[in-house]
């Protein structure tokens, strides 16, 4: 499911999927501001049919964090 996560991240921040790594985050993706960060949450929730907790949402600093939280919701993500 990593591909899906990357695809969603790429779509929301309007960047190429090749530019995304697990270390991608607001630090290195310019369009990753707080608003787009929340849009990303919506897209992930709609896609995986889950609901993140408020702490999970505010805790995300990188794509790796997203994958970690997805696991809490029984979404299988490759390492």
């Amino acid at each position, binding site marked *: 499911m990593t591909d899906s996560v990357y695809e969603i991240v790429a*779509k*929301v921040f*309007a960047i190429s999927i090749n530019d995304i790594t697990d270390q991608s985050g607001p630090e290195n993706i310019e369009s990753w501001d*707080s*608003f*787009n960060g*929340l*849009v990303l949450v*919506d*897209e992930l929730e*709609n896609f995986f049919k889950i609901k*993140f*907790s*408020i702490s999970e*949402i*505010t805790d995300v600093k990188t794509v790796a964090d997203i994958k970690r939280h997805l696991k809490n919701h029984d979404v299988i993500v490759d390492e």
Partner: protein
Amino acid sequence: MEKTLSEYISLSKNLDDLKLEKKLKVAIMPSFTLNGLDETLRVKCSELDIRCQSYVSGYNQYNQEFLNPESNLYAFSPDITFLLLDIRNFLGEIFHFPYKFADKDRKLLVKEKTEQLEKIINIFSENSKSKLVISNFNIPAYSPNGIIETKSEFGFHEMIDEINKSLREMCKKKNSIYVYNFNNFISKHGEKNIFDYRQFHIGDIQITHNFIPTLADDLMSYVKPLLGKNRKCIVLDLDNTLWGGIVGEDGFDGIELGHTPKGKAFVEFQKELLSLWNQGIILAINSKNNFDDAMKVIREHPNMVLREKHFASLQINWNDKAQNIKEITSEINIGLDSIVFFDDDKINQERIKQEFPQILTINMSDDPSNFVPILKEINDFNVLQRTVEDTQRGEMYAQQRERKNFEKTVSNLDDFLKNLNIKVKMKKSNKFLIPRISQLTLKTNQFNLTTKRYQEKDIQNFSENENFKVGCAQVLDKFGDNGITGVYIVEKNKDFWVIDTFLLSCRIMGRGIETAILNEIIKDAKESGIREVRANFFPTTKNKPAENFLSEFGFTQQGSYWIYDLNNQIKIINHLEVEIEE
């Protein structure tokens, strides 16, 4: 399929809308965090060939922006302003603790808050020409008073209801103000879906991102009529659209209409169509059928809701559906972009979509119980005001059909005109006529010499100015009342008058009415001792029907003006009667 917010945002980044002819400036003034609405509106506008520029005020800055005449909002000079308020912010502390206060104090507080709001709204209308759309407030499902909330004296829910009521009253008083029923929006889509406590705590987001496109769609209901993008006519198929089955095969008694569950769905659909017809939406038929078979159902079937008199055009034949659409547009004289097309057949839908992309072709469901919900989702029929003429439009078109049939029975035009018994009532502008006069200047494209668009405020100013003569004409004939269908605005100078605006609704063109109205203006000028009357013709892509009017009347072109010398004889028109009302 509605796009998601993130799709709208990415589309908004690459909008190629600079070349679009229609332009709109939208201001968005939220009391809470409302990101993405602006981008979504711009994309939705571009889909309608409108270039939308937007201004979004800072978080909860509406008070300051409205109060300060030098604010960025006024500098932006919007055409339409959406003031989107939330009840928590509006009520403050009392939102959570309504019953900490006595009911008298709750009343007082509501009165104070609404008066404050009315004050800033008044300041806004003094400082801006923009239409103002204010959202009303959601009445939360919950109350700390539980099941006895409805017994409370001026309780929590009643407080908000009272605020909403005051908003309604404010908007009834002012033509440029509209209340957006946000409470209805929440009822329709559900408080639980729209309000997400996580987004609220993270950033005071009070409408969840998933519903921003839906909200934008609702707000487009105001934009469409403002820019003349609203639709006026529904073209309908018959078999499996207005009734179940095929009349040519199943017969008069075999079609499903009423009684059965499926038959009831068609009756319900017809009722909703009739209710739009009552509000001025034109209905027309485009059906492949034997004319007599179909008409027998329309005229005689006991469960038909829509009858012959409701249809402005009846194209029931075996011709190509696209050809029939052309017949309809020429019979009722409307543009393709005014039409919504309902046909259950996917091939017909495809045919019309390809031939006439300007038409809104509905993707109809196979299940007739979906017809009404589909119809109710269409937000293209809105108008910013509804005049008496609008509500009578359906009847007027049916009369027009009778007039045309009559025309076919008479051998020449003169006989036809003589037998129409046309009566033209010339009326001086007054406060009851101003909305209709403004409306005609805003939407008349064909017989319009100058195509100057005037809001009600403008018409009011002209009417109060003694250097202007503003009037309109009501036209009646043996088939009925055409309503107020002609408008003129004349600027009166010392020696000469200038015709600023002269227009006629297209449905009464070509009957000598335009000549009769201009005659009265000329007579009046002559009696006032004026030397000449000047007029302009400004060509547009649509006003060709008015092109030769001035020269045929006897005006001659001199420089940039068309001039009528008042020493000329005034034409006499025999076939109609003119009545001047003061």
